[in-house]
């Protein structure tokens, strides 16, 4: 899934923080341009395309809000994740109102930052025309990565959503473990069949109570069956 | 009426007092209660019992449990007796009735009366009520009476001026044919003469002069004068109380009554509750009766014939609206009567009067 080259602009004036963030994204193979000054960041954004912008609000020169406002005014749809250290809860609202896609309040867990960044990047890469898949009372919104069972919104992990997406794209079709392994992990990651069983198990549990089930066909694979069809 | 005995006397002038039948102390009569007696009303009056009798009877018909002792005095005796009792702080009488209202005023002025306020007393006109202590309960105009056998109709005097004119015109025809009070002997006479002199001092002086010239006959009192008239010894009686005159006219159709049209004095007999009355409640009850519509009706029908708010009795020649026209001059019951009561005043006035009238020999 992350086989394409990703460019991230990080705007953060606190050196220790900026260093850690850019190091972590480098480690996962992304290119990170790190700016500490608001004016410079704003300029760079006006002529460079990025896949994600991580923006601190409190900046010398121009603050994060102004950069964001200007960015959105120029028509750019690049995902923006705002970081804030202010406690004025208003900051978050205005960040979202101004077109930020997500925000984190400092201090934050770096794994959470990475996870949220991934979500934003994936949302950016998605974009199938039919966005909602329905099977039984399970509905999967592919744009927002949202899963509903009846009226309940179920929070699924990234790979669980991908798994559900594969199964629900053709309900009733039996997918073999190998097929699922390929689609789920690609070729880069080495994962065993046990991993498939693990995800299937989790997904099953999270879909409990739904009017659709994941059926295990011993020896051949898995299928999603809607109770409504029966 | 003829049985009526009336004596008027003036203290200190005993030689002048005509000796008449009846006692100076007055007549006394008891009206026993017609039912079980529960009260005893004592009336001391200087008012003829015969005139009062219908009123007493009617009152008793309504109050059968009350015995009435009626004692008739001459005015001066009544006054003296009441004054002495008052000074002693006692009173035999529960109510005093007198035509000499000046004496009653004097009694009230000296604190010998008690107040009385009731719905009946409130109907008494202002001029007949002093201090809610003296109430006038009759309405008696002072009139001329003539004998039509002797006085031709063109001679009938309908005013004081007309009388003066008549006496000047025909002095001989009326010589010794006019009669009036002897004010020396009569309290009422004095009071009327005193008020006459104040109504029109000059005209009155001239009238007295004319009366003197025609040798006017003076008699002690009303009935004496009227008696002379009835007997044909005089032709005109001057200044007679209307009530007596009307009674006389009823008895003798030849007697005619004229109410003068220039002015007519009006006397209201007074009633007074003594301050020390033994039964003031009974006195007040009787007074209320006298002042009530019923009592006034009885008085008008049977006793005094004239009433303030009634037409003149049949046959009386007089102005139509006596009071409204201002012809009726009521003798106001009030402090001004004290002037008439003054001893020096009285003796001076009588002396003057006598100089005018009384200096010719009486027949």
């Amino acid at each position, binding site marked *: 899934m992350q086989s394409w080259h990703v460019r991230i602009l990080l705007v953060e004036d606190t050196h220790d923080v900026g260093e850690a963030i850019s190091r972590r994204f480098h480690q996962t193979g992304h290119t990170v341009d790190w700016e500490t000054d608001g004016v410079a960041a704003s300029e760079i954004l006006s002529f460079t395309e990025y896949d994600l912008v991580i923006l601190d609000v409190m900046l010398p020169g121009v603050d994060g809000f102004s950069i964001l406002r200007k960015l959105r005014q120029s028509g750019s749809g690049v995902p923006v994740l705002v970081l804030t250290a202010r406690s004025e809860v208003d900051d978050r609202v205005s960040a979202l109102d101004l077109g930020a896609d997500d925000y984190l309040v400092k201090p934050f*867990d770096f794994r959470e930052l990475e996870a949220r960044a991934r979500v934003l990047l994936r949302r950016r890469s998605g974009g199938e025309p039919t966005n909602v898949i329905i099977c039984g009372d399970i509905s999967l919104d592919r744009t927002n990565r949202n899963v509903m069972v009846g009226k309940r919104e179920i929070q699924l992990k990234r790979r669980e959503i991908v798994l559900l997406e594969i199964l629900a794209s053709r309900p009733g079709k039996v997918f073999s473990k190998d097929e699922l392994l390929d689609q789920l992990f690609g070729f880069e990651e080495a994962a065993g069949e046990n991993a498939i069983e693990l995800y299937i198990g989790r997904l099953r549990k999270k879909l409990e109570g739904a009017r659709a089930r994941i059926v295990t066909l011993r020896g051949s694979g898995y299928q999603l069956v809607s109770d409504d069809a029966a | 009426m003829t049985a009526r005995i009336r004596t008027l006397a003036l203290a200190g002038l005993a030689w002048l007092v005509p000796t008449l039948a009846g006692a100076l102390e007055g007549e006394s009569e008891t009206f026993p209660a017609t039912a079980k007696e529960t009260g005893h009303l004592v009336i001391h009056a200087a008012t003829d019992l015969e005139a009062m009798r219908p009123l007493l009877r009617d009152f008793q018909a309504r109050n059968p449990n009350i015995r009435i002792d009626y004692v008739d005095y001459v005015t001066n005796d009544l006054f003296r007796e009441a004054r002495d009792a008052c000074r002693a702080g006692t009173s035999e009488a529960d109510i005093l009735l007198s035509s000499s209202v000046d004496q009653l005023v004097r009694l009230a002025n000296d604190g010998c009366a008690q107040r009385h306020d009731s719905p009946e007393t409130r109907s008494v006109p202002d001029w007949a009520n002093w201090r809610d202590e003296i109430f006038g309960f009759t309405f008696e105009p002072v009139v001329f009476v003539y004998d039509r056998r002797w006085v031709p109709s063109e001679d009938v005097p309908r005013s004081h001026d007309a009388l003066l004119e008549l006496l000047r015109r025909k002095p001989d025809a009326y010589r010794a044919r006019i009669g009036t009070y002897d004010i020396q002997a009569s309290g009422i006479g004095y009071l009327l003469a005193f008020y006459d002199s104040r109504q029109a001092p000059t005209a009155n002086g001239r009238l007295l002069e004319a009366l003197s010239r025609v040798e006017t006959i003076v008699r002690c009192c009303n009935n004496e004068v009227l008696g002379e008239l009835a007997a044909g010894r005089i032709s005109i009686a001057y200044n007679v109380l209307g009530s007596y005159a009307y009674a006389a006219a009823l008895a003798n159709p030849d007697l005619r009554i004229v109410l003068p049209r220039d002015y007519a004095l009006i006397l209201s007999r007074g009633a007074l509750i003594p301050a020390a009355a033994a039964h003031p409640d009974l006195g007040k009850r009787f007074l209320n009766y006298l002042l009530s519509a019923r009592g006034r009706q009885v008085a008008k029908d049977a006793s005094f014939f004239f009433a303030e708010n009634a037409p003149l009795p049949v046959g009386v020649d007089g102005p139509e609206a006596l009071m409204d026209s201002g012809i009726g001059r009521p003798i106001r019951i009030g402090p001004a009567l004290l002037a008439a009561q003054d001893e020096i005043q009285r003796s001076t006035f009588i002396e003057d009067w006598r100089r005018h009238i009384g200096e010719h020999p009486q027949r």
Partner: protein
Amino acid sequence: MFSRLMRRVGVVLALGAGTLITAAWIYARAAADDAYDRLLLGAAFQMSESLSVADGNLRFVLPPSAFELLGLANDDRIFYRVIDPSGATLTGYADLAAKADLSASRAAPIFGDDAYLGAPVRTVTVSHAMSMPEGPGWAYVVVAQTVEARHALASELTVRATMLVALMSLLAVAGTALAVRYSLRPVDDLAAALRQRDPQDLTPLTVAVPNELSPFVTSINYFIIRLDERIKLLQRYIADSAHQIRTPLTALSAQVSLIDEQRLAPEDRRHLKRVQSRTLELAGFTNQLLNHAMVIHRFDSVQLVPVSLNDVARMAFRNAVPITVDPDMIVSFEAADEDLMAMGDVLSLREAVVNVIDNALRHGAIARLEVRVRQRENFGRIEVIDDGPGIKENDWPNVISRFYSRSPDARGSSGLGFAIASEVATVLRGQLGFRKRSENEPFCVYLELPLVGGQP
């Protein structure tokens, strides 16, 4: 204020009326005396003028007009006495003013108050010089009159004056009442403006008031501005300190996260783990502290608006459940069928719910966490349900107080989470509640708020 003013005005008016009436009474007495004294004197003069000497004798004619004059006081009794130059009583009441010094009246008539025949009387004595044959001498006239008419006139005058004074007092009271009401109306207006004012509205008052009240309004406004400044200052202080604390904390955790565990000795790795965990704990607690302060102070300045509980709960749900949550945890959100509206402040409310969810994730849920919005009669509930053991019933009152740890060895501090949620709920006239875990139902913490009408 009105009644107190009126009471005082009433007292002043009553005192004034009392003084006026007393003065009127004194004046009426004097006026009545004056009026009737003239009558008395006139009558006495008339009588004395009637004294004359004729033929060597003293002659006296009592003038009725004198009595008519006195008779103007119709109800009063009259006593008189005429004394000749020899001192003998000529006529009248011989014992009247028997003890009086008659000669004193030679200069001028003498008035006096006396009693005669048991009644109070006013007397006047006048003198008259007479030329008697035996030589000149003085005759005297004493006239006395009871005082009923005087008293009647005096009381009539007094009664009229009293009525007038009463009327004036009444008018004054009514006028004062009107005036006081009228002049107090701006105060009422001001009070109404203050009463209707939103507690969070810290703009100066703009009510039009008369000049007399403007210092008052100025003071109020001065106070409001000061309060507003203080609140702003406090908020800025909190915001600034938040920033000041968070930035190094972030830097710290950033730097810690950069340490390469692989290169550390096992011993050091253990220490690193401890540092990481404590850093996280510190971060979480700092967030709670700052959020708590923020939430509480927001209510000083924020105006409440109708808030959709579904939206707030969903926002909180997405915010509170980290993407990095344990993959075996089943986390779900279920909105209410209708959009439930409650008066509130989105951010505070969301912060409250976030704290409840956060607490459930950290200390409660084992494998399942559900967030639901439900209607219960006139209340809307945001329920946070987990499959953990729950909180013991007798701990419920404690956990909503600040800095309370459920167990002595509780990892990290749950100290402020419930406190924030509870305080927000209370300010919004709702409550933070708990439901016991039972056979059929898992443990539940809920935030309950009164609903407002106009649900779409």
